[in-house]
């Protein structure tokens, strides 16, 4: 039962990654591409990590995975912000 739930979560996570990658490739401008990318990082990785934690059933590994997710969330959000701000400033100069 847990394994089925874990598989579903992992597949849902992969779906978000795929959607994010397609968005990154297909969206017209930098801001909407960043938008697509952060969805994959935040939700996709989160679902993947919950799925993996359920599958492995080890609280210590689950804690490490959670920590990885939080670090990626913060790093992803910050770098998206930095890239967007840089692009915005350059637009103003032009």
């Amino acid at each position: 039962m847990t394994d089925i739930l874990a598989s579903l979560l992992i597949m849902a996570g992969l779906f978000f990654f795929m959607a994010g990658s397609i968005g990154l490739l297909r969206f017209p401008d930098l801001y909407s591409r960043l938008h697509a990318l952060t969805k994959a990082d935040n939700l996709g990785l989160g679902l993947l990590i919950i799925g993996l934690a359920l599958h492995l059933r080890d609280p210590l590994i689950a804690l490490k995975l959670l920590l990885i997710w939080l670090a990626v969330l913060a790093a992803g959000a910050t770098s998206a912000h930095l890239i967007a701000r840089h692009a915005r400033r350059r637009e103003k100069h032009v």
Partner: protein
Amino acid sequence: MNATMLLIFDALLLASIIGLAWAALASADARRSVILFIAFGLLLAVAWGRLLAPDVALAEAAIGAGLTGALLLAALQWQPRKTADTTNSEQPTHTLLETGFRWLVTLLCAALAGMLAWSLTQIDAGTAKDALANAVAANIDASGVSNPVTAVLLNFRAYDTLLELAVLLTAVLGIFALGPAQAGYRIAGPVFSSLTRWLTPLLILTAGYLLWVGAHAPGGAFQAGATLAAAGVVLRLAGRDQIGLPRGNALRIALGAGVGMFLLVGLALFALGRPFLGYPPAWAGALILLIETAAMLAIAATLVSAFIGGQPTEEKTRC
């Protein structure tokens, strides 16, 4: 079924690695090449993971992809960006030499790949396949650690690691010969600053964890040193003046700590009538931890010095 899936995964991984390597080399824009190189390094780390070599995977991800990528990006930033007309005017004089050089590198790489492939067939054909692994497994109890990679790096072949650290020390002397470090970046905005505030302690903590866990699981001085250096890189990017590097004599001690501690332990054992770096089994674990701690500090200081691209300016903290 499972094996087929893994085979497909491996094939995709290999194709991606080769594709990324090709794209990185073929790209005309240096910045694009560097970014592709970082992606290449990350996939290479996955490949090492698939080869059941998590220690190498960690080192590749931390040093190969992470820090080398940061170094290359920093180097690109100091380099004035090539504009279209300068490349055009210089091209005719360069082309012949460049083409020759590229072919030379290609041939040397091909020769290396051929030799590696040949030695792989020899390993599979010969009886020596697991002889080395068996020898390590037979003596692991006397090594003071239970992670075979650390046992080889810090005990059975400690001499090699000592020389590797000496190479790093030589490299940092070369970096210092470039003169004072580049000027830092401007102070980061509130978003990046607040990330730095909790990411830096977390990186230091992770480095300590990797160092400690190296005794019985994948990890060790090199991975820990790279993680510690990453904290310095983050601080540098956030525009902090003090990036965790000590100044003056303290910096010299930190840079020489790896080789110094190795030699100190080796010579002390020598004086006690044991072979050079031949730890007594009862003390091996503690001595390895001591050397690895010093090595971690030296590796981190070396990598951060490389990132700032020169000798940190002394006592000119605020300007």
